[in-house]
């Protein structure tokens, strides 16, 4: 696993960290990066389309229209798809920053969605106040699901890479059981749950679109995490443990077990929230394929953002756009969606390679002075 080497942005340059100028230039730099990446993605796609003999022009037009072609495409296709990617991406980046290879965002997301379905049953009693309850239930379930892996890691030294992947399967099949058993819709025909009470559905934040409250949650959590990691002692502890746990314990006298466990649980909670938000904001019912691999794509999103929470928000929107566009491309131009998956994978490889190359050239420059 080469993932831990991608430890993200060298956080602060404290000398100028307070100045507004550095923040502006950071944001401009991030936007430029995103723009370059989007261009690279289009170029890669054109190459792939040409190689596979598709009608390149039609496909591209369908893709762009589907992703950003209209106000509705932007808000209801791209941004709606970005929500679970952003939340799960934040979950992954938080864990990776602490040196925990949580590959289980998928399972934690499913646990969160299932718990939220249960919680929605309280709608008749609680009215709209069922929403905070089901979001909290999603967080708790996600944290608990991650907690199994955290416990195994802490007490028995089980590698979390293995346990979280395994727990993804357990979660998937548990949802399969639930939607054929206790939570199945009333006709008992389809393997899916009842539709949740309208009072348990997340409010839309832009009328006339499908963009729901989950988007605002993702943005708030992303900004809060970024600030916490950068400016708070707890955030620094988490990053120090991720950078070198032995030194963090010896030189920093940090309680490594506590720090990693808390980070693991928090990561699970955010992934669980992603599931709850997807259920109550988009699908309104639970089924096995409620997540087409959001938890795995989230790893890509986190790496593309170099584990920076603000970057995760941007990368999630970009992936959301690609997937919305891919969907439209298949529908309108008959081009298989998987081509876009290939582009996504290539983008990540490029970013990782570019990071390596940049670090090495910086080191060589410093060594030769």
């Amino acid at each position: 696993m080469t993932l831990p080497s991608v430890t993200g942005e060298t956080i602060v340059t404290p000398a100028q960290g307070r100045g507004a100028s550095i923040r502006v230039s950071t944001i401009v730099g991030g936007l430029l990066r995103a723009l370059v990446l989007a261009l690279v993605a289009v170029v890669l796609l054109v190459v792939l389309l040409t190689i596979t003999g598709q009608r390149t022009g039609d496909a591209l037009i369908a893709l762009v229209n589907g992703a950003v072609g209209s106000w509705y495409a932007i808000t209801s296709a791209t941004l709606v798809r970005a929500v679970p990617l952003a939340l799960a991406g934040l979950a992954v980046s938080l864990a990776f920053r602490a040196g925990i290879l949580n590959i289980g965002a998928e399972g934690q997301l499913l646990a969160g969605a299932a718990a939220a379905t249960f919680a929605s049953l309280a709608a008749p009693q609680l009215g709209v106040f069922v929403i905070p309850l089901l979001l909290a239930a999603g967080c708790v379930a996600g944290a608990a699901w991650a907690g199994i892996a955290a416990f195994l890691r802490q007490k028995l030294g089980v590698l979390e890479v293995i346990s979280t992947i395994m727990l993804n399967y357990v979660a998937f099949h548990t949802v399969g059981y639930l939607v054929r058993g206790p939570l199945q819709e009333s006709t008992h025909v389809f393997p899916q749950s009842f539709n949740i009470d309208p009072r348990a559905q997340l409010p839309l934040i832009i009328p006339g679109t499908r963009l729901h409250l989950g988007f605002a949650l993702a943005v708030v959590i992303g900004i809060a995490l970024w600030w916490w990691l950068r400016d708070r002692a707890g955030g620094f502890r988490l990053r120090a443990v991720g950078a070198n746990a032995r030194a963090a314990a010896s030189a920093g006298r940090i309680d490594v077990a506590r720090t990693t466990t808390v980070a693991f649980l928090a990561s699970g909670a955010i992934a669980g929230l992603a599931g709850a938000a997807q259920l109550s904001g988009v699908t309104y019912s639970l089924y096995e394929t409620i997540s087409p691999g959001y938890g795995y794509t989230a790893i890509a999103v986190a790496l593309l953002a170099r584990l920076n929470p603000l970057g995760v928000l941007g990368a999630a929107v970009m992936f959301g756009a690609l997937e919305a566009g891919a969907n439209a491309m298949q529908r309108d131009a008959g081009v298989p969606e998987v081509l876009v998956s290939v582009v996504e994978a290539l983008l990540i490889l490029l970013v990782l390679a570019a990071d390596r190359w940049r670090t090495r050239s910086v080191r060589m420059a410093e060594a030769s002075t």
Partner: protein
Amino acid sequence: MVGGADATQPALSLVGITRRFGCVTALDDATMHVQPGTVHALLGENGAGKTTLMRVAFGLVQPDAGAIVRSGQTLRFASPSAALAAGMGMVHQHFTLVPAMTVAENVALGGRGRFSLKEWAARVHEIGARTGLVLDPLARVSELSVGAQQRCEIVKALARDVRVLILDEPTAVLAPSEAQELLRWVKHFALAGHAVVLITHKLRDALAVAANVTVLRLGKSVLNAAVSDTNEAQLAAAMLGSAPLQGTGVLKNETAVEDLVAPINASAPLVGVSLAAITAPVSLSDAINGTGRLKREPGRVVLRLNNATVRDKQNVVRVNRASLEVHAGEIVGVAAVEGAGQRELLRLLSGRLVQSDGDVQLPAHIGFVPEDRHNDAMLLDRSLVENVALRDAGSREGRMPWDALQRATRTILNELQVRAGGADVEARTLSGGNQQKLILGRELALQPEALVIENPTRGLDFRAAGAVVDALRTARAGGTAVVVYSSDLDEVLSLADRVVVMHAGQLSDVAADREIIGRAMLGA
């Protein structure tokens, strides 16, 4: 040049070797001649190019200019396997063994064809019988002591019929008794007709066994001489590039060279205490009462152990009912051979380990500089500021005071003369000596009540070592209680106001006499 004039042909000649890395010239017209049947010492500060020169001789680095001549033939080693085939062997400073494999498998590594454990085990036995480097061929390397691992490295080289053996800082990782044994073996091995190149920065090691010596400075071979024609002072001056120090020509053999050269750094702002060492290098007899240390009344007790016992995870007693008091303003030296429990003792004293039994009283602030700084003290991929911020990170609340930490980092860089490209560069861009100075500066900032430091100058060159020693003495002058362990007994003796000895988990006070301490370390 010494070698060329000799009647016999050199076993290995390196002539005019030049090698640049980017715009850095690592080797600049370096020349040396190694005679068969002798030990040849290669001396120089850290970064002088010793290891690079030997990597050229071993085919790991290609020279930009110059020639390698072996027994009259000019050779070009495209790779280490070519060098091996030509009878060159190299034991690297950092071991290149596979820990999970057995000794025999490690020795066989790199060979071709079918691997027969039986044959290689017999070969390891045979080499052991012939050279005295006895090893259990079926033992796993991960279970060997450091000394045995080094023997394994040497056996690995010998299994390839080496005629020129290069040893890179072989004594750095060894306890003093093991080091002596190794040096005796090296001399013996050379007498059997082989040539040995010994890379070291310990002058005494070099003078003890070598017939000839080459000194590198900034990649140039500044001195090639027979050991009988030179002395410690001349060699030290050649290594440092300064004129021979006045009045040091008659250095007593016991004097740690580190003491001799520490004052080079006397212009550093933190210095002051050790200036005395310039005018009167410490010989052992006056080491106890002499000018090198402060005579002062011991201050209040800062660290106190009372019958403290430490057990490891397997419930083996590592520290057995140890009692110790360390006072403000004194340096207590811990002498021990590797594995005597001193590691656990130091961690107990620095609050990094909790006793299983007994009483331990520690102050709130204890600086700790562990020997394995990369793993235990630093965030290599992080900025110097974040490395400084690491101190006390465990108990910090609220916001990170980045502005103040930035200033604190700059202060450390200035006061300890850490050479770095600024406070925001990654810690891994610093050299080993500068990393050590940064960590020491971090741990000494804000005057901690106590400081525990392990092998303070291991792997450092003279200047960096001098700066570290000065910083320790300054801390003592400021009232810090200092505990220092070094695997180099001379370093313990030159630094400490008093010495305690650890042997098999038992801690005992001893008179600061080299002989007595040496015997106590071995439990005699």
